[in-house]
């Protein structure tokens, strides 16, 4: 049984269909890449699965339970956590306090939450910044914090929305290593990413969206050779 199964998910904004009949499944322990050109409906798909938008049709099943239309906080308590494409740290709280907020999902005990948060911070390599305020961080550290906070809730499934965008080459390599280590801890991951080398090297499988529909799915190396995918990214001229 897949950890997450999405069937015929549809989301409209007025006359615009942002997602149409999108279906996919993620097995436990997998890293699934979600790619597609700008406006393909990746972020909408993410927001709908994570409960931030109400779907207009379709079904989402998580860990064997129908969770269609659940609120984000309820989904998070069931073990699905997300990061935001545009980072949203708590600016006036320290890195440690930020991560503690996530850790408090599993325990009301202050000392236990602190221990959890410290452990997560060290896993993410954020110890030197533990006492800094959210607003004092660089963009790369803010993205790390975003991931640390989500991880501290101890999710089964982590949705990473463009965690690599805007990072330098070295920062991207660090982040890729982190995602891999996170998976090794038993966390299933779906990532939306524009940086192709990241998707290709990290993902076990990729799903390609274009114009709100799924146009391809499979191993990364196979998918990039499919005519529909080349067409979506490069236009008709390069149609093989």
């Amino acid at each position: 049984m897949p950890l997450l199964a999405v069937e015929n998910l549809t989301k409209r904004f007025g006359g615009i269909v942002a997602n149409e009949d999108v279906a996919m499944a993620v097995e436990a322990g997998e890293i699934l890449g979600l790619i597609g050109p700008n406006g393909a409906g990746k972020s909408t798909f993410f927001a709908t699965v994570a409960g931030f938008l109400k779907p207009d049709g379709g079904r989402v099943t998580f860990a064997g339970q129908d969770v269609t239309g659940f609120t984000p906080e309820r989904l998070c308590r069931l073990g699905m956590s997300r990061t935001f494409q545009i980072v949203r740290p708590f600016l006036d709280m320290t890195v440690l306090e930020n991560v503690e907020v996530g850790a408090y999902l599993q325990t009301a005990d202050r000392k236990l939450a602190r221990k959890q948060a410290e452990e997560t911070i060290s896993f993410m390599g954020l110890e030197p910044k533990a006492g800094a305020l959210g607003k004092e961080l660089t963009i790369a550290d803010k993205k790390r914090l975003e991931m640390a906070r989500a991880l501290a809730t101890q999710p089964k499934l982590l949705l990473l929305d463009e965690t690599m965008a805007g990072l330098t080459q070295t920062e991207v390599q660090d982040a890729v290593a982190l995602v891999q280590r996170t998976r090794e801890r038993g966390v299933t991951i779906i990532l939306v990413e524009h940086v192709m080398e990241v998707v290709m090297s990290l993902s076990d499988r990729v799903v390609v969206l274009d114009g709100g529909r799924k146009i391809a799915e499979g191993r990364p190396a196979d998918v990039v050779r499919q005519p529909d995918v080349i067409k979506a990214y490069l236009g008709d001229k390069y149609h093989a």
Partner: protein
Amino acid sequence: MPFRNRSVVLGGVGLAVLLAIPLVVTQPHPQHVLIMIFLYALMGIAWNLVGGYAGQVSFGHAVFFGTGAYTTTLLMTKAKISPIIGMFAGGVVAAGIALIIGWGCFRLAGHYFAIATFTVGQMVQIIATQWKYIGAAVGVYVPLDRQYQWWLTLQFKSKAGFYYVALLLLGAGLWLCWQIGRNRLGAYFRAIKGDPEAARSLGIDIFRQKLYALMISAFVMAVVGGVFAQYVLFIDPASVFDGALSIKVALVAVLGGAGSLWGPVLGAAVLIPLNEYTSVMLGSSGSGLDLLLYGVLIVVVSVYQPDGLAGLWDRLFGARGRILREKKVTADAAARS
């Protein structure tokens, strides 16, 4: 830990001074001003939980104050229940009212929430003015207790008794706020203020947490209202459900430092003497000059010092100030090597 020892010593000396003040300062008016500082500091702390920590600015907190004042007084006049019990009963009633108000108003965010709380405040005042059972516009006189059996009536021969009651309650309020601030509830409140959407993504039911903040806040406000009624011995809707009281309570917290533990105490220590002595000098005949002063203060604080007096203090002497200085030192050392 020498720093901790120093804090304990300073705290002990401060407490001894506070306890000794009524023995030295025996004139009624200075004692009255101190009592008012304590009560407003406590109300500022209550407001701060929802307005400062959780970032939900309320301009209707007089509702809870009035609820406490009326519940305590009516329990005493109609059922002979001691205000010492009555003020906590008032707290429970106010928390219930907060649940109802929050249920409606927390569907709104930001300015709209603030406007809604102000409107509810006005509505409650009008209802209280019409409600015959609770004395309507005439108000209620608290029966005088000539024997000064304070455990039955919370009335004292001198103001010193109220001074100690107010001080004790302020201490309890500070302790409560400190406990909330260092535990999950406080972390959740601050997360909601920081970014409600991010808070939801971390599993926080923000509607429920805001209700908790408002209910705790309302409870404390009502306790102060109950004590206040026994202090002034007369309550009516115009005084205890006063919209200006709501503003003043918010101002105490914001001037002192929204979201900081000691902020409201600083705010009350500055604002209340200012208020008391200007009304002595300018006459309290409703000239509105004190309100004008509040307006100017709100503008000055929000433009020049958004984190209030506590923020100013912190930056100069406090923990963050120290951290910044240490950072600079290590950075300089790194630059030299």
